[in-house]
């Protein structure tokens, strides 16, 4: 049928475009020179390089007759994985970037403007807060928000 041909071609083109996105993201991840720009390349690689081919594979599996009646199961798995990665990948990237920024991992790149910096707790403030906390005897409660790398 002509409808099945059209769905198959759309799915195959999505897989091919996803593969090319993936190669571009890999080159970017290798050649960018600080962490935040690498994060940009990585999100291209996860949304364009993983979600798009998975949806394409789901469309192909819907009309791929050699699979028999298992093809609907395969299409269901593919769409589930696609929606899952679509939700998970931006969340994970945001949490990773916030960990690197607030935990001050690595060297900070040269920025033009950084308006988050005045919200960061100063090194002395955190150290004093931790010292005050440690002097209290018998207090079991932990401070709510401690920067482990700043404390030492």
């Amino acid at each position, binding site marked *: 049928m002509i409808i099945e*041909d059209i769905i*198959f071609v759309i799915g*195959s083109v999505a*897989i*091919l475009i*996803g*593969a*090319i996105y*993936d*190669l571009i*993201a*890999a*080159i970017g*991840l*290798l050649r960018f020179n600080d*962490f935040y720009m*690498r*994060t940009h390349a*990585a999100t291209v*690689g*996860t949304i364009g*390089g*993983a*979600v798009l*081919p*998975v949806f394409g*594979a*789901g469309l*192909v599996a819907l*009309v*791929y007759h*050699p*699979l028999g009646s*298992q093809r609907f*199961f*395969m299409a269901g*798995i*593919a769409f*589930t*994985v696609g929606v*899952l*990665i679509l939700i*998970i*990948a931006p*969340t*994970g*990237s945001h*949490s*990773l970037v*916030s*960990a*690197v920024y*607030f*935990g001050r*991992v*690595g060297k900070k790149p040269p920025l033009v403007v950084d308006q988050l910096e005045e919200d960061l707790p100063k090194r002395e403030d955190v150290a004093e807060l931790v010292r005050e906390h440690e002097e209290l005897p018998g207090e079991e409660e932990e401070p709510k*928000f*401690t*920067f*482990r790398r700043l404390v030492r």
Partner: protein
Amino acid sequence: MNFEAVFLDVLYFAAVIYTLAFVLYGVRAIKGPTTADIILAVDCLSFDMAAFMVVLGIYFKSIMLASGAIILALWAFMLDIYYTKYVLYGEVEV
């Protein structure tokens, strides 16, 4: 249209590019300056491997290969969250 033959061509093209991308991700995962770079590269590697496993599952006609992709995607998300929790809060607890 013969779906099986066309899909073999598509898979042939996609597998070469995916393998090249996996190698480049692996280079970054090995030489990354900080731990966050390694986590980021392994994260990308896991998501793309999940996508590639679904495509391979269609070719090999195996639904078991495709259902492992869900576990792989969730595992990469767990890696991000645990690293964030370890760096900011100093401990990993449930």
